[in-house]
């Protein structure tokens, strides 16, 4: 008995022709029952009890571990319904029907029984009910891993992946025009065949291997004979964009940023920018890098920037201060705990190097290494992340020149460092030379810091870095 059924589609689903071949007596009985169902069916869909099928190995009970759907959801045949577990085996139960879930017979962690109803699915009356047997195509398709198959004496070349796609959509390979080498049927051919039938662009399948059909203009030019074979393209197709807005609550790192930045809003920021010639520092670092390497420490530019900032803060301690809530008192912090903005997988974190005022450049480098490895492993402690008094953000490692950094309360100043670029500059003799230029952008709290202070601090910091030898004079 062969029953040909055409199911209507709704929305962006496409028309599928379904060939059903029923060989079994019991199935015949079932189809007879169907007819009875249909004659007595109401305009609403019929509720079918989807029973938990045999798991194998004589198992009769399983525990329901996760539901993938809830009551009211619509499902398609082969969609995952739930995950059950039995004795070290995790089983994905998939739907046999298309329809709407009306009832879940078990809660999480309850025991479900093989052969008893698992869910109730409401099926559209006009669609009818699929038989208990799996869908089989006539003639039965060979599932061997051959690359060609003989149907009606006609060899169809197709890979297993393409075959599977065809089987899942109940397409006879003999009806598809192959555009590959030797008339081989490609994935696109299957998709085009389907598109032809429906006149709509197929929504991308959840399975990774199925690729949405490429617009004709993007197709790589195939062999001449392929170009000659025209694949009919529907002229005006409604462009269906299936993207949806996604709203999710703000948690974790983002929540932390929201809190910090909302507090920072209360601070009246002013900016001050400048250009630093790092030519000498670049050379110095090249010389010192191997020495640090021997000691097991990776030396970047940051330790120099940090130490120079600390030396500057000794002269302008107001930049290392904190204003209280009521703006009545300013506290000059004794320790220079200089924060370094770090970009991790999860987001922005700012650990700080404690007491830079008593650390050598090497010690700062070593501490930075420690913070960086902890940061990337997600193991920074609260102590590393709190107590900062001044912050530097080396955004230049990613890119950019000038920036407008936001002060991290309770601090009163922050500096953003751009990337180091090789640019032409004039020296004292009026000659053009290659200079390593980096831009710095400072932001400060204008309630207690004035422009002159910031400028002088910046000049001092700049002079230390442009002429690293001068740092020696003031190093403590």
């Amino acid at each position, binding site marked *: 008995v062969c029953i040909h059924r055409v199911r209507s589609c709704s929305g962006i689903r496409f028309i599928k022709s379904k060939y059903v071949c029923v060989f079994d007596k019991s199935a015949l009985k079932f189809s007879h029952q169907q007819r009875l169902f249909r004659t007595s069916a109401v305009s609403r869909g019929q509720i079918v009890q989807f029973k938990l099928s045999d798991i*194998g*190995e004589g198992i009769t009970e399983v525990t329901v*571990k*996760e539901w993938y759907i809830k009551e009211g959801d619509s499902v398609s045949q082969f969609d995952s319904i739930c*995950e059950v*577990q*039995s*004795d*070290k*085996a*995790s*089983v*994905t139960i*998939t739907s046999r029907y298309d329809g709407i879930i009306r009832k879940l017979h078990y809660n*999480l*962690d309850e025991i479900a029984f093989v052969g008893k109803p698992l869910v109730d699915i409401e099926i559209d009356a006009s669609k009818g009910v699929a038989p208990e047997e799996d869908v089989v195509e006539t003639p039965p398709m060979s*599932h*061997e*891993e*051959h*690359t060609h198959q003989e149907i009606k004496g006609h060899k169809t070349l197709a*890979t*297993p*992946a*393409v075959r*599977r796609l065809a089987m899942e959509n109940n397409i006879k390979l003999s009806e598809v025009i192959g555009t*590959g080498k030797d008339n081989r049927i*490609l*994935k*696109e051919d299957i998709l085009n065949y389907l598109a032809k039938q429906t006149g709509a662009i197929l929504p991308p399948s959840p*399975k*990774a*291997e199925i*690729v949405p059909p490429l617009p004709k203009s993007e197709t790589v030019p195939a062999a001449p004979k392929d170009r000659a074979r025209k694949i009919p393209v529907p002229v005006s197709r409604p462009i269906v964009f299936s993207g949806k807005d996604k709203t999710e*609550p703000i*948690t*974790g*790192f983002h*929540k*932390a*940023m929201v*809190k*910090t930045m909302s*507090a920072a809003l209360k601070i009246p920021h002013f900016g001050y920018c400048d250009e630093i010639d790092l030519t000498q520092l670049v050379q110095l670092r090249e010389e010192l890098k191997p020495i640090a390497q021997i000691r097991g420490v990776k030396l970047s530019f940051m330790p120099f920037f940090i130490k120079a900032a600390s030396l500057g803060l000794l002269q302008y301690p107001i930049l290392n201060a*904190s204003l209280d*809530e009521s703006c009545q008192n300013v*506290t000059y912090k004794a320790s220079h705990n200089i924060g370094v903005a770090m970009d991790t997988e*999860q987001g922005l*974190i700012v650990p700080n190097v404690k007491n830079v005022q008593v650390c050598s450049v090497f010690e700062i480098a070593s501490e930075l290494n420690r913070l960086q490895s902890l940061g990337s*492993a*997600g*193991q*920074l*402690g*609260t102590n590393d*992340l*709190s*107590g900062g008094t001044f912050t530097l953000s080396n955004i230049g490692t990613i890119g950019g020149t000038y920036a407008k950094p936001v002060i991290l*309360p*309770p601090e009163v100043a922050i500096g953003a460092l751009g990337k180091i670029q090789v640019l032409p500059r004039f020296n004292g003799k009026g000659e053009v030379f290659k200079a390593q230029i980096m831009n710095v952008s400072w932001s400060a709290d204008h309630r207690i810091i004035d422009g002159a202070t910031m400028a002088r601090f910046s000049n001092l910091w700049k002079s230390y870095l442009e002429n690293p030898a001068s740092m020696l004079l003031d190093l403590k």
Partner: protein
Amino acid sequence: MVLQASLKNCLQLSCILRTPKAGFRSTTSRSLIIQSTSNDVYQNLAVEDWIHDHMNLENQQVLFLWRNSPAVVIGRHQNPWQECNLRLLRQKNIKLARRRSGGGTVYHDLGNINLTFFTSRKKYERMENLKLVVKALKALRPQLDVHVTDRYDILLDRHYKISGTAAKLGRTTAYHHCTLLCNADKFVLSSVLKSPYKGIKSNATPSVPASVKNLFEEDPSLTCELLLDAIAEEYAAQHQTDHHVTIINPADETVLPGINNKTKELQTWEWVYGKTPKFSISTCFNMVYKDSVLDVKVDMDVKHGRIEVCNIDLPEQWLPPALCSELVKSITGSKFCPTETTTLAATLLRVCPQDGELQSRWNLLCENMITLM
């Protein structure tokens, strides 16, 4: 074009599959033995997923051989906090992975071999697979006392577990995988599989601890290579196929299109931690501050790996109550994860009165909270 290339390699893979025995075109069993070049647990688990989702196993079976660098692998429905020492894992840089099959937690390192038997759903049969492994072991070393229990474990000398089993069944395909301890680090194994977290109440599948032993301890001449070879040979014999092991690279998109997405998914926090069944923690800890010892009681509900409900009971006025409730409000909805909690705690500190005493108390409380995660 990517499609053409993948097609070509699909053909290559299927050509390999197609090798018929001399002149005899078997339509029944043509099985395949494959081995991974990678020691990355996520990549190898992704290969399992790929085969499960994309290969047609109606008339063919596959044996997949793989080994991982140090990793702890929990079952699909397990709770990592209950099963292992996450702090130790992070310190030692041991990976944590959640597989898609059920069962308990295992420790993998290069001294442990993993075997996955892929069949169609109908042909799923774990006992047969394990008997095959035992047969291979006995063929290699007849004096080995190994047997399969009805819990699908393989025991050495009737007492020591050398293999654990888990399985995954889909709509049309199924796989059964098991471990085999050859020369794993038992010391690390026992320390990472011991959970220090107290007060967890959960319906997650618990692991059943067992005494383990390495085959190497029983017979020092045994190596992973020897075992893999013996098992492959036995499999080839039983499935009437060539004893030929195909090497595959789990990062190769041309042979396994879409594999890298699968690998990525297995590494996401949402999969590894977020899939933990709902659980609650009810515990207390002592904090030593200056000269006093304080009792702190914490109650939390964690769902999808995120803190749903949180309650911290502190001695009165030890910390400003407003700050405490801010902390609770902050971490509610966030991941049950030390990094997130640390970040949130540090942020909150920025916006509260700058008092050294307060800061050190705050840090102490937060450090202790984080030890729960």
